């Protein structure tokens, strides 16, 4: 069956096919759809699943990544989602939507959302109608049915009973880490499905916090990724993988992950707290510079309260050279952090030196924030 094109909306940027990089078509040889249009699945026997395969084609001019593909509406179900897939120019990908009318007559309504990293979300309306006698397993209760007249054994619609889901992180989430997030169920899944894992935060936002898709460029997705569910399995899959890498960022916050189906059914939710910590110094480099030495300190302060610095120099035989040199960098940090979306910083501290610079072998750097002081030696 080929869906019929019902309406070309002039709203929401519709009817601009020539400008669309991503083109949606029904297979085989079906029409092309523009954002805002309605995709009609036609009239189908009640309770009978009908699959329609669609094709997404990247018409250029550049590569794109599908960051979201989602279907809403009780009568519509998305098959394996290609969300997260990168498409080169000219490449295409197919996916299937199953329409199963639960009652006769009235059109069933749903929506299809498609989003790429570089373009705004495209929405399509889904519609279809049911006909004939319903299979008892799919009969929806109707308000006009007289309760007294209804047979005592009238069945109610059978929605799948989803097992309890748990969202896990391995290794445990902490600032400045990349962990694998997985959704594991306590028993095998009853049917296929698809959904979305969303990350919300309270506390510090972070421009470097998000999911890393398992594609060749490691596409960064800040807050939401799609997953698929397969009957008989006990784990959600992200682009076929049983987990997805999540980069926590470098600011303290409480992160809440929520897994939901396309119809908003919540499968699992879990919060993790990234507590305030000492400054983490990732790298200390000591190098000769004009008239002295330059010390580079890369690290992060998830409290964004860094203030005092201390530099203790050692000679090439590891003897300390003089007392620690104290620097108050409060002003520099306070002018830097509000302008960036992370707690990561790169600090460069120049020192003028009189004498033989080559006698300097190493330096220990201490950075203080609201949680205390941390120290690291140069490499």
């Amino acid at each position: 069956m080929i869906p019929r094109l019902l309406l070309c909306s002039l709203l929401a940027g519709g009817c601009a096919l020539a400008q669309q990089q991503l083109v949606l078509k029904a297979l085989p040889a079906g029409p092309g759809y523009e954002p805002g249009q309605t995709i009609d699945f036609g009239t189908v026997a009640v309770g009978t699943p009908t699959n329609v395969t669609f094709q997404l084609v990247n018409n250029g001019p550049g590569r794109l990544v599908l960051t979201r593909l989602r279907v809403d509406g009780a009568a519509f179900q998305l098959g394996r989602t290609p969300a997260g897939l990168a498409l080169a120019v000219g490449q295409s990908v197919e996916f299937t939507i199953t329409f199963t009318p639960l009652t006769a007559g009235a059109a069933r309504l749903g929506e299809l959302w498609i989003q790429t990293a570089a373009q705004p979300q495209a929405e399509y309306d889904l519609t279809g109608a049911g006909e004939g006698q319903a299979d008892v397993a799919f009969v929806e209760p109707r308000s006009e049915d007289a309760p007294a007249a209804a047979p005592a054994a009238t069945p109610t619609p059978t929605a799948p009973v989803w097992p309890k889901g748990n969202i896990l992180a391995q290794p445990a989430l902490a600032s400045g880490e990349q962990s694998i997030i997985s959704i594991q169920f306590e028993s095998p899944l009853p049917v296929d499905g698809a959904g979305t894992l969303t990350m919300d935060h309270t506390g510090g936002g972070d421009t470097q916090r998000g999911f890393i898709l398992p594609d060749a460029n490691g596409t960064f997705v800040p807050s939401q990724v799609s997953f698929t569910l397969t009957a008989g399995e006990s784990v959600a899959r992200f682009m076929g993988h049983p987990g997805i890498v999540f980069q926590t960022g470098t600011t303290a916050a409480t992160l809440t992950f929520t897994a939901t189906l396309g119809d908003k059914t919540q499968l699992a939710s879990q919060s993790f707290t990234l507590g305030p910590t000492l400054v983490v110094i990732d790298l200390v480099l000591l190098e000769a510079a004009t008239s002295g030495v330059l010390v580079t300190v890369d690290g992060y302060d998830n409290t964004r309260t860094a203030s005092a610095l201390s530099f203790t120099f050692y000679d090439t035989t590891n003897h300390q050279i003089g007392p620690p040199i104290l620097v108050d960098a409060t002003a520099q940090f306070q002018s830097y952090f509000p302008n960036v979306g992370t707690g990561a910083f790169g600090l460069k501290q120049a020192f003028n030196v009189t004498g033989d610079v080559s006698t300097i072998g190493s330096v220990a750097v201490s950075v203080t924030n609201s949680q205390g002081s941390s120290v690291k030696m140069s490499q």
Partner: protein
Amino acid sequence: MTRRLVAFSLYLTAALAQTAVQAPGAGCVRGVDGGLRPVHGITGALLASAPATWSVVAAACSDSLALVKTSGSLEVRDGGLALLARWDAPAGAALFALPRGGQTGFVYYPATGQLLQVGVQQAPRAVLDPQSLGGTVLAMASPDALHLMAVVADTPGPRLVRISTVDGTIESQTPLEDVAAPLALLSDGTIVFADGSGLVIRPPGAAVAGMALPKIRPMPPRRGIVTERRMALPATAVSIDQMSGVWLAVRLADGSAPLALRLEGASQRTCRIPTMETAQ
């Protein structure tokens, strides 16, 4: 201690001790789409941003310079990937050696065997006669301004060659055992190469093996016990590129995001390099 205090004075006043805080840079990474992207962040929190240029065949970045090979040119870019100079180049891939700082580097074209020194202010200059290497260069490093080291593949096996960049003299050659591409050569002589589904990190002392070839200068004595280290990877490495002065970018055969690798003393740190998606 007193003598050193006299000889070495650090000025403490705010006027002389200059403090600058900025986003930490982590070099650049070439994507499979040919985009060369600057990378910022620290271990576990990296992010590659919008490409500075496209159609990149090969590239290497230091903290102050980037050498970028396109199909027909070699570009010299600064640490922020702004274009400084462009030179004609033969088609195909390229290997690079970039010291952590400085304004010059080295490029090797496998297609022609040319090994050139290149910088911001100077046209590419041949370091030596390509024939004198007697093999194909697999990786290069620049330990100092006057020398170049190269791992050269030859019929008897790979060799570590030390070359004077002043006159092109081959100063020493050392046979290497069990080393194959893809590999990276660090400025201290450490070799990082793929082995099965992992990486081998072989410091210079551990790399010494076998009999010296003719014209080979004796190696300096080993300092202590040096052993190579191995680290597992999620998949086989297909390339190892210089991402910055301290980072390597390792691309894997499974098509997943590249790994950033930093060697730190006796340990190594890795993390994925995510890419902020942008329209081409």
